[in-house]
């Protein structure tokens, strides 16, 4: 775990930034690729470290329903951030935007010092094409609520298919990596099993291994224990705690498990209706929430 001191109140956009009505086609100040870097707290990280993330006035609509309205927030490199809030508050949408499963309707998402949702062209930012998305997705991995293992492949191929086809690893390298990861998630004996032969908890641990096999630098966890039977939740959470402890991944986590959120996160963001209501270190958010909305939400979640 790198020493990070996440700001309770993240720095707002540097004054050099474009004006507030930044649209997808807003011009990028050409002279300042440096100036566009994330306002990362702490010392600069080596180029191969985990990137930070910055949402800049991000808007997402589904039809007439505005899910995110000009959302600004920053995640420092290597920081672990948990998003909490009632359903429909936009938490999962944030992860889906980062995984490029949805497109932004306004604003820009930055990963490291490069735009994720857009690509620079002729000094302007235009909506990203498939090639740019492919390039940016190399850094990002995601684990889903419903596991989403591929039923047409056994466990081993679920773990090796993308490293071989996408990263260009040799079959042997990919198998070696898969064995190591299956060992880590405690499922070395299931290497030839079919996903349908595994319990939910086992499937989710395979899904975590599958995401890690791509060696992402940002890991997105979307309610990864919500679909599990209660007695299987602990195993998956323990695994993720280990991963959080032993890696320097930037992690964004949506969860309703407050104890888990407390254990793994540096900072908790409380969302309501597409806005951040409150944020801070988990101890403060869970023990002394300042906002009534946060208190109501935590009360409801802990009562259930």
């Amino acid at each position, binding site marked *: 775990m790198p020493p990070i001191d996440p700001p309770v109140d993240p720095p707002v956009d540097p004054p050099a930034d474009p004006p507030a009505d930044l649209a997808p086609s807003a011009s990028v100040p050409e002279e300042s690729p440096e100036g566009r870097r994330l306002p990362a707290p702490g010392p600069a990280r080596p180029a191969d470290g985990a990137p930070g993330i910055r949402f800049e006035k991000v808007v997402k609509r589904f039809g007439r329903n505005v899910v995110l309205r000009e959302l600004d927030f920053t995640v420092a490199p290597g920081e672990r951030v948990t998003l909490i809030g009632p359903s429909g508050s936009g938490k999962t949408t944030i992860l889906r935007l980062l995984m490029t499963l949805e497109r932004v309707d306004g604003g820009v998402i930055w990963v490291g010092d490069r735009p994720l949702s857009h690509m620079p062209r002729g000094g302007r930012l235009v909506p990203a094409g498939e090639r740019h998305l492919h390039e940016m997705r190399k850094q990002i991995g995601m684990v889903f609520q419903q596991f989403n293992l591929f*039923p047409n492949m056994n466990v081993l191929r679920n773990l090796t298919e993308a490293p071989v086809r996408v990263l260009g690893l040799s079959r042997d390298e990919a198998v070696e990596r898969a064995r190591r990861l299956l060992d880590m998630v405690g499922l070395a004996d299931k290497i030839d099993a079919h996903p349908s032969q595994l319990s939910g908890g086992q499937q989710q641990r395979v899904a975590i291994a599958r995401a890690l096999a*791509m060696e992402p630098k940002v890991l997105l966890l979307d309610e990864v224990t919500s679909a599990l039977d209660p007695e*299987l939740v602990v*195993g998956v959470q323990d695994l993720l705690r280990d991963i959080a402890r032993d890696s320097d991944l930037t992690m964004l986590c949506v969860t309703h498990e407050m104890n888990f959120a407390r254990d793994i996160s540096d900072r908790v963001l409380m969302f309501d209706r597409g806005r951040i209501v409150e944020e801070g270190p988990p101890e403060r958010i869970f023990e002394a929430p300042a906002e009534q909305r946060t208190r109501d939400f935590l009360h409801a979640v802990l009562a259930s």
Partner: protein
Amino acid sequence: MSDVLDAYPQLLRGTWTTVQLTVYGAALALVPALVFGLAGTSRHTAVRALNRVYVEFFRGTATLVLMYWLFYALPLVGFRFTPVAAAVLSLGLNVGAYGAEVVRGAVNAVPRAQYEAAVALNFTPWQRMLRVTLPQAVALMLPPFGNLLIELMKGTALVSLITIGDLTFNAQRIRAATGETAATFLVILVVYFAIAQMLQLAVRYAERRVDRMLGRRPDRRAAAAASGAGAVKA
């Protein structure tokens, strides 16, 4: 009846022609079914329009009329087809239109979550289709494909009308030679039925293979191994 059965060399020849036309027709149908079926799942309106045009045209035209066009009408403007080519083409294009709808429906029925998992692993659009979506869609395509295959086989009876010596064509000749109308048609009824059953068996076999690949019907060995592994640990 015995007169009809005595003509078995003719019946066999006819049966063989019917089987060949079925195989060629099915092989040909598979191509537009896949190409235009996948086109129907495209994000681009223009590509989807290709699917609509093909499907609506060839689904909406009678196979026999199509056959007459290829065999009798097109030679008038210089396109000449052999009878078998005209037959296979019209059968294949017609059944291909139905097949395209099957492919489109099956691909669309694969859960979107599978596509999303493939995006998250950074597969290219082609890899997503080829490695993830299509293999799962095949399982959904097989039962309706079985129907279409049998429809195609029965549809080959039309080729007797453009001078091809299939089972029906030969039956007509046997009937003319022997005068045994009921017996002749009874015999070919049974032969068509038998061919249909064989096709059905082949499709069932393919379905079982695919189900096993998808782990829906694990074979006994794997099931035993899974349950033998003891208590399921999270």
